[in-house]
Each structure stands twice: as C-alpha cells, then as structure tokens.
C-alpha cells in the first residue's frame, strides 16, 4: 500500500511552495450508508508539516474538511534539498507519515 500522502515541495528563492494530497475518507458522522446506518465520524484531527526540526504548518481539523483533502501553502526559510516531514493523526488513532525532499 502506497503512502496515503502525496506531496510536492518546490523551492523558488526563499519561498517553498508545498502541495499535498491526502487520501482519507473524512467522514462527518452525519451520513448514512446504503443500509441506513450512520457512518461513524472518521476524520483527520491534526496535520503537521515539519522542516529542519521546526513546525512550519500545523492544522487542527474537524469534520468540515472534504474527503481526500488537498493542502497548498508556502513558507520561508527552507532551501532545495531540505527534508519536509508530513504527518497526520485521525480521531480513530490511525496515522501516517512521509518525508519529501524539497526540489
């Protein structure tokens, strides 16, 4: 199983642009399945990007984020070749983490 996180980080001068796609159902707990049973809530609670030992982007999420979330942001203070570490944990205690080289 490939990682649930796709990431692309490109440095352009002092600014690094990060694009991420995360595979996650992000169930709100309000939707019923075909049998009419509620699908229990299942969502990412914390998403973290670290670079050179510093948190550069931390998100506390609830159920209001869509399935397979896409995140794009920029930050300063990294250069080509630095490593970016991305991790998420969800409300069921599942988590995933991956690293990407800034290109």
């Amino acid at each position, binding site marked *: 199983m490939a990682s649930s996180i796709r990431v*692309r980080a490109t440095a352009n001068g002092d600014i690094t642009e990060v694009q991420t796609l995360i595979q996650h159902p992000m169930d709100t707990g309000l939707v019923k399945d075909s049998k009419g049973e509620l699908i229990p809530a299942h969502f990412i609670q914390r998403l973290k990007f670290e670079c050179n030992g510093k948190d550069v982007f931390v998100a506390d999420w609830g159920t209001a984020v*869509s*399935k*397979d979330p896409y995140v794009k942001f920029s930050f300063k203070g990294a250069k080509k070749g630095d490593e970016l570490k991305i991790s998420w944990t969800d409300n069921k205690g599942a988590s995933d983490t991956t690293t990407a080289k800034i290109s």
Partner: protein
Amino acid sequence: MKARTSLLLGSLSAALVAFALTSPRVVAADKVDPVADAKTFQNFFFQKFADVKHEDFVNGPYSMNADMKRQWQEKEEFPPYEFALDAGKEMFATPFKNGKTYADCFPNGGIGIRQNYPYFDTGEGKVVTLELALNRCREANGEAPYSYVKDEMASLTAYMAFTSRGKPMDIKIPDDPRALEAFENGKRYFYTRRGQLNFSCASCHVQSPGERIRAEILAPALGILNAMPIYRSEWSGMGTISRRFVTCNSQTRAVPLEPQSDEYRDVEYFLSYVANGLPISGPGARP
C-alpha cells in the same frame, strides 16, 4: 378557433410544398451511414467552436471556458485521480486466485488498447465495452464482478486509459447489419427525449455545450468519453462511463437503465465512434 385551424392547415401545406421543393440531394433517412454521421457530428462542433483546437474537445468543459481551464491546468499538476490510478495499476498487476492476470484477457496485455473500446463482437452480435470486458475477464477467472459505476472499475479503467493517453480513438464498425443497427440504436438513444424534463442527451451536450447549467459548464458530446473515467469534485470520487450515463439519466429525471444494458452499450458505441481520431485523455478530472 376555425381561423386558427385554417391558419395551421395553411402553414402545414406551405411546409409540405417547401419540403417538396427541397433539392433531391436529401439522403433517405433509413440508410445507416456512420462515416457521414461522424463527419457531420464533428463538423458541427468544429464550426460551432471554431477557436477550440480539435484535440482540445476531449477536455470537456475546460475547452469551453478559459477561467476553468486555468484552474484545471493547475489541478493537473497534482491530479485528484492519482490515487485511483495507482490503485488501478496495482490491481492490474495482481494475479487472480488462479494465477492469471487481466493482461491475459486482453490483446497486447491490456496496455495501450483503450482507444479500441467499445468494439462490436461479431460472435455475440453485440457491443462489448471495456468495463464489460473487464468484468467478463474476472468472471472467466472465477472472480466476482465489480460494480460498474465506481471504485475498482474506475481504477482499472483509469489505468488502462492512462496507458492509451494521446492515442486517437479508433472504433471500428464491421460490415455487419447488426453492428450498424447497434450504432443506429445508440444514436437514437442519444437523440431521444425522455424523463420528466423531456431532455435528450443532445439537449445538453449538442445544443448547449459551454453554457452554464447552474454552476457547471456543459461538456461537448464530441470526445466526451475520451476522458473517462473521471474524478468529479461533485462526487468527490471517481466515476465510470456507466456512472456518467446513469447520472445523466437521473439528473434529467428519467429512469436510468441498468449499467451495461444494451442501450448504454450502443450509445457508448455511437459516442465513441463519432469521436474517432480525437486523443484519449483519460483519466480526467471534472468539477
């Protein structure tokens, strides 16, 4: 009332006279001529949207609207169908319980052949679509068939489309009355109004491509299947050709047919044939 009737009769007879006066070049409508149909169909779109590049029609609404196109190009750098594509690649390579794989069911191991589907099977006397062929492959190898509308089927077709990207659609109509009948049937289905809104497929996708339908931009019928399967933001997931037909029917408040019913297979045959020569661009992304 009387005056109205006579008026109506008057205009009717005038119309009949006009009809009689039209040039004898009118081809009898009972002859099935796919080549001429495809040419007419393509020219209609090429003329209506003179500034759209021919190979761009397969990008659906993005060929019609500059603003949407820009957003889509940005999205394509990081496409939403990527997960499905990877899953499909993995599934395609995973052997069945009996050790065989999908590659054993298809010419050229299933790689780069999507542009040849659907084809007319002369043995069966019916149109065989890629989705159908995939499920038949599974059943022949003792596996349960997949749902036609999403998930696994979309992943598999996404991978197969991806290996054919850029290849021109290449649908053959063999010299067989049943094949011509299937083509004609598909055409009839496409142009027949149905459902509570009394829409045909053509009402939206021939008459109004590029127009807004609420917040959406309608895609042109030309090349509409070249981008399948698609990730639709509206579905927040993938959908197959079957799914597209079913939702189109239900959105016009008609009763959808069973996926892979004869009519759907025929309409897929018709729509693919008239898009001959346009590149495969699947898997696609749509709003």
